[in-house]
């Protein structure tokens, strides 16, 4: 599936004006703060709201074009949608929820239930087939919703904050299921989220939306190194380091140890290090910081209010300096410096996906 969407929607308080392009088999994350217009974008692509201006084209077929009056109804689009609130049908059990779309498209009840059960089994929910949504946990309900969206074998899987309503542990579990699915199939997926960890673990590419406009798009490492806005710098531009925590130390696949807060639970996790908490020194620092690495300055991104420094070392890092700090250090590409991070400033996102 390939998608070209030029979306213009006038909302009471602001205007959404973005372009989203996707190649076949890609997983793209649309990342942005609350109120950026992400959910409106999802609605428009799913066909739950018409465009005001613009064009939506999937595999060369126009789905929505106000100029020519073309509008394909949501039930004709075959786009599987996973919503933040699972939106399961409360009067149907898990099995019939998953079978719903197949039945709506004319499959016999027996056949639809057979296919639905296979999907529930794939998501390890076969034992819950007879349960109504009200009796399922949040994570189970969201996975049933995922099975329901996938059962119709949609050309595009559209996920609107699929993990936002879940608690941390469940979020990681469902994220694992999502990643397994996205890895197994070549289907295309559009993930709408405010959480960089989701984007990092699921997407090939990221599009950042703020106040209804695309502020940045590209590969994740690129976005992290060259944040184009304060939001990206603060949230998306965070260093995420996958590894496994054991007794307050996260070990990466390459064997690098990162001291993390002592109360961080053991197990697979992402360490998130804000660029602002990476301190750079010309000489080996003495002090309380337990994470100290000798690194090489790869790239400097100098802006008026902040300087981003891409560093290569035991782990790749991005540091952010204030203009005065930058002046004092006088960094250039190729310089070797010491980077330090306090254990207490390392954030932890549990990662059950590995």
């Amino acid at each position, binding site marked *: 599936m390939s998608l070209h969407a030029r979306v213009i929607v006038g909302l009471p308080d602001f205007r959404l004006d973005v372009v989203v392009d996707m190649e076949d088999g890609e997983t793209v994350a649309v990342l942005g703060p609350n109120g950026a217009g992400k959910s409106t974008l999802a609605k428009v692509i799913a066909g*739950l709201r018409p465009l005001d201006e613009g064009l939506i084209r999937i595999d060369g077929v126009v789905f929505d074009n106000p100029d020519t009056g073309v509008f394909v109804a949501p039930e004709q689009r075959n786009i599987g949608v996973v919503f933040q609130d699972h*939106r399961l049908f409360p009067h149907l059990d898990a099995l019939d929820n998953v079978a719903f779309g197949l039945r709506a498209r004319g499959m016999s009840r027996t056949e639809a239930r057979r296919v639905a059960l296979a999907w529930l089994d794939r998501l390890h929910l076969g034992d819950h087939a007879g349960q109504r949504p009200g009796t399922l946990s949040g994570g189970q309900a969201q996975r049933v919703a995922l099975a*329901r969206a996938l059962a*119709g074998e949609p050309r595009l899987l559209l996920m609107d904050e699929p993990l936002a309503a879940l608690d941390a542990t469940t979020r990681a579990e469902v994220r694992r299921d999502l990643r397994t699915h996205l890895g197994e199939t070549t289907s295309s997926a559009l993930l709408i989220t405010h959480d960089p960890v989701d984007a990092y673990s699921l997407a090939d590419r990221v599009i950042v939306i703020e106040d209804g406009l695309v502020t940045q798009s590209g590969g994740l490492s690129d976005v992290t190194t060259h944040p184009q806005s304060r939001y990206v710098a603060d949230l998306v531009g965070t260093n995420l380091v996958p590894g496994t925590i054991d007794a307050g130390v996260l070990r990466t696949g390459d064997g690098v140890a990162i001291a993390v807060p002592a109360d961080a639970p053991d197990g697979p996790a992402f360490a998130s290090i804000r660029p602002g908490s990476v301190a750079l020194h010309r000489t080996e620092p003495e002090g309380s910081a337990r994470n100290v690495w000798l690194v090489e300055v790869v790239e400097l991104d100098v802006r008026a209010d902040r300087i981003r420094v891409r560093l290569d070392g035991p782990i790749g890092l991005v540091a952010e300096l204030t203009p005065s700090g930058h002046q004092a250090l006088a960094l250039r590409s190729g310089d070797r410096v010491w980077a330090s991070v306090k254990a207490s400033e390392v954030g932890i996102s549990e990662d059950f996906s590995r």
Partner: protein
Amino acid sequence: MTSTVGDRRRRARRANRPPVIAVLMAGIAVAFFALPFFGLLWRVPWSEAWSLLTEPESLEALRLSVYCSLWATALAVVFGTPLAWVLARYGFPGRRIVRALCLLSLVLPPVVGGVALFAAFGRRGLLGDPLFDWFGVRLPFSTAGVVLAQTFVGMPFFVLTVEAALRGLDRRTEDAARTLGASPWYAFRRVTLPAIKPALFAGAVLAWARAFGEFGATITFAGNFPGRTRTLPLAVYLALESDPGQALVLSVFMIAISFAVIVGLRDRWLGGSGDGDPT
């Protein structure tokens, strides 16, 4: 001095007690509703009750009442559901006026409703002649006229209940159904209707109860002909003149039926669970 557990319980109960004046007023209100009913029970000639109840005229009135009120309920459901749907979901100019018009018979004196029905469907009414010329139908003073009068007064109860339920419904679940390939009609049948099922039942029961007890519009529009338009309330009215004992027996009988239906059905569908999943 230390207070015992019993002391504390008594004091807690006292703190939770409603004000005396409220209890007094509420008691008067309950008595106001209950006394007429007990009065009836007291006056009923119990020795002859069974024979009065099983008299042919009584049974005929009962049969007609059940027949007409069920038809009226069916019509209220068939036409009231789309009406409630349109009122709840679609904004159009004059919607408030349309809603007010549809619910007018709630506050209209039933006799006035009957007169109005006459003006519309009577021999000299707006639609009286066309109905007769095209379909050979005369509604006034016919059983169909009774059904019409009962639908007129009963349907607003159904529409009000169902419209409120539709308004309270989360439309996003229907959106989810659409993305799964459901047409609007399929989504309505498979998602919306099951979700408002309690309201459909409650509304139908209310409409039925109103139709079952209908008197004013019926006697004005359909008259009081045994076997054709004489429903139970009309039979009670007539018996009041000729045989007060029978009027009392029929009244108690009607109250018993209505009470059983309201308690048994309405409370079960409105008060119980069965509503949508909150999260």
